[in-house]
């Protein structure tokens, strides 16, 4: 936490340490946040933004429709490169989906108060990212309508999935992750839904929020069980987060393809996931706090901390790259050594250097206190890191496949229009969901903010 910070007594620190602006009461917190959903009129900006995002999502729908009609041949994949954009995007989105649950769960266990104001939309982001990710393994199959073969159901042929395959592990990991994240998010929402129920004026709103609130009334007995359940979920979600991306990394590390088959993958995929996840949280948090004037809730301290997490995980990722090189060279395995050379000098070398630039070099700026406290820089940086992490997946998935064991089978890959349409389309879907979320649900946990208020007020006493 001390990296590049001035001494603790400095004025900035005093200005920065609070995780919530001064002078807030239970009431004002409640009003301010719930107002965004209930009373605040929907801005024209929201409509425009939503429409753009929604039409981009429409492009995705078309792309997938065409895919179903014609087949995966409309993409750039071939033999030997059997996996292209679909899997790259899948891994990328899943990675992004890691910050939410991580922030909620691990920071909750570590009792990091500053998580409070960002965990709600971070979790939402997780869900939406997982939704985007989850689509790809399904549509990338040659016969998506047969994809249910991958689920264990009693088929008339009496045959079951093949549990030795990492793809089946994926099915379980991703669906579990989706389910648990959803529950975690919803449980956190219940008290706030109750608040909205009690504060909304129109009947329909009252009814909808009322139903969602399940009749929550803030009873001490309920809070009692609620807290232990939430704690347990956090405890369970933490290893889950770590396991999910490890399992994703098994897709590659269990295979024998040079550049895939390496033991560093699980830790370095997890680090990468958190890296990109936090980057995405920043990408969303920064505009959000600006537009809805939440600077007092999402303070510079939050941004600062997230930047530090990015820096740390970024360094782990860098270590991962280094180990890949070292192991390949040290093992003397001629295929691995060749692959390393390919990354540096092969036809795809530019991608690799771009990746190093985005993921390792540029983020080093975060050592500087000034950079960490320049919102614009952070925003750009977060996007750079997202690009970098996407490139990392591209390098791993595609480049490793282009030149493996038998030279006669070497080939190349380049995405088609439909690859791009699907990829960009999922972004549209993601943003669309975010837009809807901030409009109909409290983007910050009101109940937890009240807790913060009570604690800070106690501090003052």
């Amino acid at each position, binding site marked *: 936490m001390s990296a590049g910070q001035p001494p603790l007594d400095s004025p900035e620190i005093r200005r920065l340490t609070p995780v919530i602006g001064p002078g807030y009461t239970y009431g004002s917190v409640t009003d301010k946040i719930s107002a965004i959903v209930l009373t605040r009129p929907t801005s024209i900006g929201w409509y425009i933004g939503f429409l753009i995002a929604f039409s981009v999502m429409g492009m995705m729908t078309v792309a997938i429709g065409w895919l179903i009609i*014609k087949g995966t*041949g409309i993409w750039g994949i071939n033999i030997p490169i*059997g996996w292209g954009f679909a899997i790259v995007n899948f891994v990328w989105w899943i990675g992004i989906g890691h910050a939410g649950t991580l922030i909620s769960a691990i920071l909750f266990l570590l009792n990091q108060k500053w998580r409070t104001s960002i965990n709600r939309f971070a979790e939402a982001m997780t869900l939406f990212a997982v939704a985007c990710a989850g689509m790809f393994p399904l549509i990338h199959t*040659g016969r998506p309508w047969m994809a249910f073969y991958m689920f264990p159901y009693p088929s008339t042929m009496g045959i079951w999935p093949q549990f030795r*395959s990492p793809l089946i592990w994926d099915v379980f990991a991703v669906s579990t992750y989706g389910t648990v994240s959803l529950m975690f998010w919803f449980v956190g929402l219940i008290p706030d839904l109750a608040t909205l129920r009690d504060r909304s004026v129109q009947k329909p709103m009252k009814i909808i929020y009322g139903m969602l609130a399940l009749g929550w009334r803030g009873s001490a007995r309920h809070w009692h069980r609620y807290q232990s359940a939430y704690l347990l979920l956090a405890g369970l979600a933490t290893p889950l987060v770590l396991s999910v991306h490890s399992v994703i990394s098994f897709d590659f590390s269990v295979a024998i393809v040079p550049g895939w088959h390496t033991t560093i993958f699980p830790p370095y995929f997890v680090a990468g996931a958190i890296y990109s996840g936090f980057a995405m949280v920043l990408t969303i948090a920064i505009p959000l706090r600006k537009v809805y004037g939440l600077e007092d809730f999402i303070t510079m301290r939050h941004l600062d901390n997230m930047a530090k997490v990015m820096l740390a995980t970024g360094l782990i990722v860098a270590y991962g790259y280094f180990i890949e090189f070292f192991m390949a060279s040290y093992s003397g395995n001629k295929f691995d050594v060749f692959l390393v050379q390919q990354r540096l000098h092969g036809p795809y070398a530019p991608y690799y250097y771009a990746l190093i630039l985005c993921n390792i070099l540029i983020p080093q700026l975060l050592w500087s206190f000034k950079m960490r406290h320049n919102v614009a820089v952070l925003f750009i940086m977060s996007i750079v890191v997202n690009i970098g992490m996407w490139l990392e997946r591209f390098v791993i998935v595609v480049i490793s496949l282009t030149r493996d064991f038998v*030279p*006669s*089978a070497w080939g190349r890959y380049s995405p*088609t229009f439909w690859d791009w349409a699907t990829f960009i389309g999922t972004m549209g879907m993601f943003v669309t969901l975010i837009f809807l979320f901030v409009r109909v649900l409290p983007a910050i946990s009101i109940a937890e903010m009240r807790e913060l208020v009570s604690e800070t007020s106690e501090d003052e006493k």
Partner: protein
Amino acid sequence: MDGMREHEQHEHLQGQHDHHDPAEEAKLHKNPMDLATVRAKLQSKTGKQYWRTLEELAGDPEFTELLHREFPRQAPSEWDDGVDRRDFLKLMTASLAFAGLGGCGRTPEQVVVPYVKQPEGLTLGRPQFYATAMPFGADAVGLLVESHEGRPTKIEGNPDHPSSLGATNVFAQASVLNLYDPDRAQTVTKYGEIQTWSLFVESAQAIAAGMKATNGAGFRILSGLITSPTLAAQIQSLLTLFPKAKWHQWEPAVGDGAREGAKLAFGRYLNTVYRPEKADVILSLDSDFLGSGPGHIRYAREFSRRRKLNGPSDTMNRLYVVEPTPSVTGATADHRLPLRASEVELFARALAAKLGIGGTPSGAEKWLDAVAKDLQQHKGTSLVVAGEQQPAEVHALAHAVNAALGNVGTTLYYTEPVEPQPVNNLDSLRELCADIEADKVETLLILGVNPVYTAPHDFDFASKLKFDQEKKQKKVKNVIHVSSHFDETSELCDWHVAESHYLETWGDARAFDGTLSVIQPLIAPLYHTHSAREVLAAFSDKPGVNDYDALRTRLSAPSFFTHFGLTDAEKADFEKFWRKTLNDGLVAGSAFAPVNASLKFSAASLPAAKTTPADEIEFLFRPDPCVYDGRFANNGWLQELPKPVTKLTWDNAALVSPKTGEKLSLTHDIAARGGEHGKVYSNVIDISLSNSKVTAAAWRVPGQADGTIVLPLGYGRKRAGYTGTNKGFNAYAVRTSDALWVTSASASAIKKTGEDYPLACTQYHFSMEGRQILATGTLEEYRKNPNFANEHAELPPKELSLYKGEAEFPYDRDKWAMAIDLNKCNGCNACVVACQSENNIPVVGKDQVMRGREMHWIRVDRYYETPPKSTAHDPSSYDESLFNPPTFFQPVPCQQCENAPCEQVCPVGATVHSAEGLNDMVYNRCVGTRYCSNNCPYKVRRFNFLRFQDWETPQLKLLRNPEVTVRSRGVMEKCTYCVQRINNARIDAEKSNAPIHDGAIVTACEQACPTEAIVFGNANDKNSRVAKLKAQQRNYTLLGELNARPRTTYLAAVRNPNPELESA
């Protein structure tokens, strides 16, 4: 039925005569008929009236036009476009229904005899097999054709036939697709309008009657190279009927060199038959005798028998090849010397000089000395073979050298020509053209050939048939064309008779050694087609005689009997003889006896050879290894078949040597999509030769002689059909009569257009990157260290496992395995097409090949052995080591790993192991994640990215092998070791309650292989051929270090270089 049809036709005679007046013709194009109208017309009539209706339709110009529109616009794309296909289907059914008329008017049923005798080590399984033969150039390949419910589906070699010995080549394998080609001509037409056969016969008779007076002075017949005695007899009978008529022959891709060479050497036409099996040292003077030309299948077999190594003590023959451009023979050679085509003659002369039989000595040449010495040390057991495209002098010199070395009678012998009437093709065609120009020709009958496309361009054959604007008339009054497709020539002819496929007709043909092979039909003609002989008969006094009777009459003729010195018993019982002949597919003992030819030629007497100036570039015309002279242009299997050396598909390219390429700065660019395994951009060049020009994509070929550019023939067809039209460039366009095979021009004849053209190349990268993909060594090394192939293999210990102590799967019953002897494989590709035919493998088309999505279950990889320091990885690189690199071929089917990496990663268990250790694909379980392909180190898995398989075209449905699933979109597929054949064999074995004996199961690739390089069998049976091969020390595992434990293993290639040349 027959009678009825005749009757109809008479009715329509009147109506049909005036169909070709310009007005009508114009009308055709004004209101073309669409399918809806056809349907309407057909629906309007019902019941008994049906035939009549169609006949009326036949008269209807729009319908005619509809049927004879270029197919491409209607035809299916080879992958997926539903709408076109439906229209096409409708069209086909309409035309099929029409052709059906022909079907019901055929000659009475004739009995064909199933192939009942089961040769050693070959079980024929459920379907019936019939012996027949495919006439091809001066050869006929004996075949056994697999027939399912009367549909010929698969071609195999006839083990009893001398030119096959049970093997086949790509052309024979693919010929079955020609039979079902939807673009085949299907009816008799006149001026492109549908006519009936009887109408044709009548007008033929009318023409004949007209010629009686003039003794057929204006009558000309143009055919290709014919070895069929019956057909020849038919022509002869016409020539006797019309004494002044003439018979011309034109075979574009077979040179006159061999013929004229024999004349030069012996004073008369003779046929040369080689016995490579008896030769210890072979020198090929630009001859691709292992890959093309008469008898090449047999020669490859004989040659490979002398490359067989059971142990270090075994001996091998030695092959020297002198050639301008790499052929499979050159790739197999122990020593290869790239020389320009014109220098080959100089080499031959110099060799003759060295052997002291005249000739013109060249400066002491190390290579030459070594070869000459080697040959002399093997008098009587050496062999010199001259190439088909080489001039007469080279052939004569080869004869002289062979004579001098005393090889005649041991490693080769001479027979009477297999052609009934050998002529100099070029002169023959020239004479015809001259006669036409001199208005001496009134009726021209073109049999099978396509002169408008193939004739030397200075003959301008098209103009001979076109309407003459000055004279306001056609030079030739009646032109009748007989061909399987309505092609470039047909367009300019009056009558076009759709020719029957050889699987639809009775006939005969002589093999390369004179063996009389019988062609018996596997199926009644699919369409209203006729054989060339029938057409000839139509002009004779006996028009009615059908092929069946003609053949039987001929075989039962007394002269014929005496000719073959048959026993009285056989004479007595002709039916027995007939049945036996059909059963064997040949007339036993009909091979020509050797004739002793006395050499009337001395190399000394040769005039000075004409040479190409060193600064000029030499251009060669060579038949394409896949589409030959263009006759296979519409065959999707052959179009998509990677050419043995260049691995190009769907196009021909101007082949240049790396050095010349560098000089002319001709480069390649690997495309981003597909890349090395699909798409390469090549510079486009304009080639101006003999005041004509072609535009071609240039392709660098390592090992090609410098200053040489090869222009492969057979592409750039303007009217071949959907598959073949406008593919590649037409080399005939710059081929002139004075330079049929080689011509030269200064480098200025070549201009870069600045454009690039995408070529579909399935293996651009030729370096092994220092990996032991393909183990090679010399005989010496092998003797010193028989285990050289496995020296560097790092096979992991078996106990190195996550599952220590777990029981392994036993595979104790049958353990199927394959061994591929790289020492024998010459990369001829027969296995690839055989596999495609056996396993219903779709053709995906150029675009998909360029995306790296071709579907071949077995591929033949081509690698060049470049020195470690070399930086050459692909043709775009330039490196001394590429001037003449040792070339090796490696067929790669699924390796059937016991620890299959693909199976472990399949999420749904769609690829699993059988109890016999086969790596099975369960198509209907596959969801298409492609994970298995990613994890396959050999990349032998193939994915149906789109709906590649053609599900609608009716003809192609007939083609399919009913024992193999037809895969649809979205599933993975791969080699199954021909599991359907394994199961057939097991069923037989279990019925007879006996174990499956070795050789009972022959995979398609193994069966087609001319060199016996592929051996399949039960590895548990210690006496099986495969077990013995695997026991050899040469046997090694591809990528053994991965511990996938493949069932398919390779035997290292061993070359037998001449120590004298090695020392350098």
